[in-house]
Structure formats: structure tokens, C-alpha cells
């Protein structure tokens, strides 16, 4: 569930991010404070309005005095934190993680409907991934075009579970989930049957809009045509929690 509503007696803390002194409410996470202050932090699974998943590991930051890296999405700020968001080490780790993602599902940007509008592609560029050192995994997946409005291409999926969460937390249908484990994981609708045969899908399309890549797209889109629109999410999330 997204974080609960602000308590009236919530305190304010000061912290330092990348040399900038900032103040924040103590119930905020590092990534929220960074976004408020235009400090770029890469992330794929995090999306404002959805629950915290903490799986893409791209938002890891360094905290002074702490050996372990912290995920900015799941760590709340505390008084006096000294945070570095973009050290050489973090850049290197992020590059490797993006490479692992590309190699895992054989992403081919040039023929992807999300080409030019894809968060993974954008991250590769901003993280300086100009090639992938590890070999592509070459697993074979089928495209599911059974739904009359949408299409699922596992080869573009990065298992961020945004679709699973938006379907469960905002739409309330819980059509999506993840099956299997490890490299065998994949997103499924209902009992892993074709999407078009799902009894629970309301065809609301929220999953498509929050998908960061070309894994979930509208039918009929061609290369580069799939533009996602996520403006509905913070609004719906707020209203859900106001209930």
C-alpha cells in the first residue's frame, strides 16, 4: 500500500543530498525528496502512487557512515543524513544493472513500439550504456495478442511489477501477478491463460500506461508509436486513499 496519509504532528528534518542542504518531512522517502528537489535518481519499479517494490535497485544511494547502499525508494529520511546519489561507483553499478536488464529479455529497441518513449531505453542512454557486455540470454517468449485492445510482449518486460500493483491497488482487479521464480518469472493474467480470455480484466488499460517499456502496449501501434500517459495515477491514488 502507498504510504499512509500525513500525520498532523509529523516533524521536519534536514539532510544533505549531493552537497545540498535540504529539509523534508520525516515521513518522506529519499526518492521523494530528490524528486521534489529535481535531483535525478534513476528507477524503474518505483512509481508515485503505487506501493514500494524495491526491486530494480537503480535508485540505490550512498549514505555517509553506512557500508551498505540504500534504496532511495524504500528508505525514509532521517535527521542529518548525508547522501550521495551519483558517485562513480553508483554509476558503474547502474550501468551493469541496465546491461543485465537488456540481456535478460533480448530488448531490441529499433523494432519496439515504445522506441523513443521507453524508460529503459532512456535510462540506458543517461547511464551511459552504449553496449551490453554480458551475452543476451536468448530465452524464447511468445507475444500475447489475444486481448482485443492490448498486447503483451514478454521480451520487453523487466518484471518491475508496476502492472501487477496498479491492477491490484488502483483498479482492484488483481488480474496480473508474477508466476515462477528466478529467471523463470513472468507476468501472467489470471491462471497464465491468454490475456484475452481473462475473466477478471476490466480492460481499463492502466497496466499499459504504467508499463515503463514496450511490454504492455495498445494493439495497432507500430514502431515508436506507443506513448504512455501516467497522469491519472497520482490523482487516482490520492482519491483511493481519501476513501
Amino acid at each position, binding site marked *: 500500500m502507498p504510504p499512509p496519509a500525513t500525520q498532523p504532528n509529523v516533524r521536519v528534518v534536514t539532510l544533505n543530498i549531493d552537497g545540498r542542504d535540504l529539509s523534508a518531512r520525516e515521513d518522506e522517502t529519499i526518492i521523494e525528496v530528490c524528486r521534489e528537489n529535481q535531483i535525478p535518481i534513476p528507477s524503474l519499479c518505483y512509481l508515485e502512487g503505487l506501493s514500494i517494490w524495491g526491486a530494480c535497485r537503480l535508485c540505490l544511494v550512498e549514505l555517509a557512515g553506512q557500508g551498505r547502499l540504500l534504496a532511495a525508494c524504500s528508505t525514509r529520511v532521517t535527521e542529518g543524513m548525508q547522501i550521495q546519489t551519483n558517485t562513480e561507483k553508483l554509476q558503474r553499478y547502474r550501468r551493469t544493472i541496465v546491461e543485465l536488464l537488456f540481456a535478460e529479455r533480448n530488448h531490441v529497441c529499433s523494432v519496439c513500439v515504445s522506441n523513443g518513449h521507453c524508460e529503459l531505453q532512456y535510462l540506458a*542512454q543517461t547511464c551511459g550504456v552504449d553496449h551490453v557486455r554480458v551475452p543476451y540470454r536468448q530465452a524464447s517468449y511468445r507475444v500475447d495478442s489475444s486481448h482485443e485492445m492490448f498486447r503483451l510482449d514478454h521480451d520487453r518486460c523487466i518484471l518491475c511489477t508496476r502492472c501487477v500493483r496498479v491492477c491490484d491497488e488502483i483498479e482492484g482487479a488483481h488480474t496480473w501477478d508474477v508466476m515462477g521464480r528466478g529467471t523463470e518469472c513472468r507476468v501472467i493474467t489470471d491462471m497464465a491463460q491468454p490475456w484475452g480470455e481473462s475473466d477478471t480484466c476490466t480492460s481499463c488499460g492502466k497496466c499499459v500506461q504504467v508499463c515503463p517499456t514496450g511490454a504492455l502496449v495498445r494493439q495497432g501501434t507500430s514502431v515508436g508509436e506507443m506513448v504512455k500517459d501516467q497522469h491519472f495515477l497520482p490523482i487516482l491514488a490520492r482519491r483511493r486513499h481519501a476513501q
Partner: protein
Amino acid sequence: MSTPPKITVATTWLDGCSGCHMSFLDMDERLIELVQQVDIVYSPLVDTKTLPDHVDVGILEGSISSEDDLEKAYAFRKHCKILVSLGDCAVNGNVPAMRNHFKLADVVDHAYRDTVTVQPQTPTRGVPALLSLVKPIHGVVGVDVFVPGCPPSADAIWYVLSELIAGRMPDPSSVTRFGA
């Protein structure tokens, strides 16, 4: 007026669509400026058909899909000081590598038999043997500069070459990306 010594450039295309070379030509009038600074010593775009022993910059388009691609990549690596992977096929396998999901024999059958109505037959003579796995260039030889894009824009290629001519290592991620 003394002109600085020209750098030598060799290019070739492996398994790809030659679109990256077309993009190269898209530099238009800048090509004139370019030929004053570089000598293209080997390329499908020029007549020379022997790779010289010592080349400053080698540019490879396309992925490694056949025995012939493999030989060319080895030759380029051996004779070129700096090797550039140009375009997504060279950088990550791109479309040619999409056949990697399938068995090679199935791919060949599909292309030359299943979908052919008149005299289906698999070519064997005069064509290099296909490798079972398509690889990017750096999957078989070391690469110094990666220029992703499908194809990389003429601007991106111009930037990369300008930097190399100036003796600097370019960082193409500022001008191009996968699928660009």
C-alpha cells in the same frame, strides 16, 4: 598551407541492412570536409577491395552471423588501431540476432523452403556458412567505440569521426542511443 596527416579509415558491413552506411552518406556536404581529413582505404563505398595492414580507424556495421562476418571482424581487429561498432546490429545484434531464439536449421528451412512456393531449396554454394548464434561485434573481438542507433544519425557519425580525427575518444551516448 600545411595539411595535417590524414587518418585512414576502413569500413565494412557484416550482417545488417547497410542502413548505417547510408546514414554515413547522409552526412551530405560534410563528406567533403571529411575527405580532407580522412582517407577511406577500404569500404563498400569505395573501390579498394583489400584491407591495408595498418588502418587507424575500422568501422564495422552489422552483426556476426556467418563465417565470413567472423573472418572480417578478426581481420579488422588485427589491422585497425581503433575499432568502432557502428549501429545496433554491430552493438547488440539487433534484428539479425532475433533469430537466436530459434534453431538455425529451422530458420533456414523457414526462409528457403516453408515460405517458398517455386523450387524451394537451401543455398549451399557460394554463400558463407551461417553461425548458430548471432553475436554483436564485441562478442568475438574487442571493440573500442560503440555507436548505437538504428541507424545512428549522420550527426552522431559526424560527431564520432570528428572526435576520432581530433585524437579524442568520443562518448556517443550524448548523441545517440539504442534504437535511435
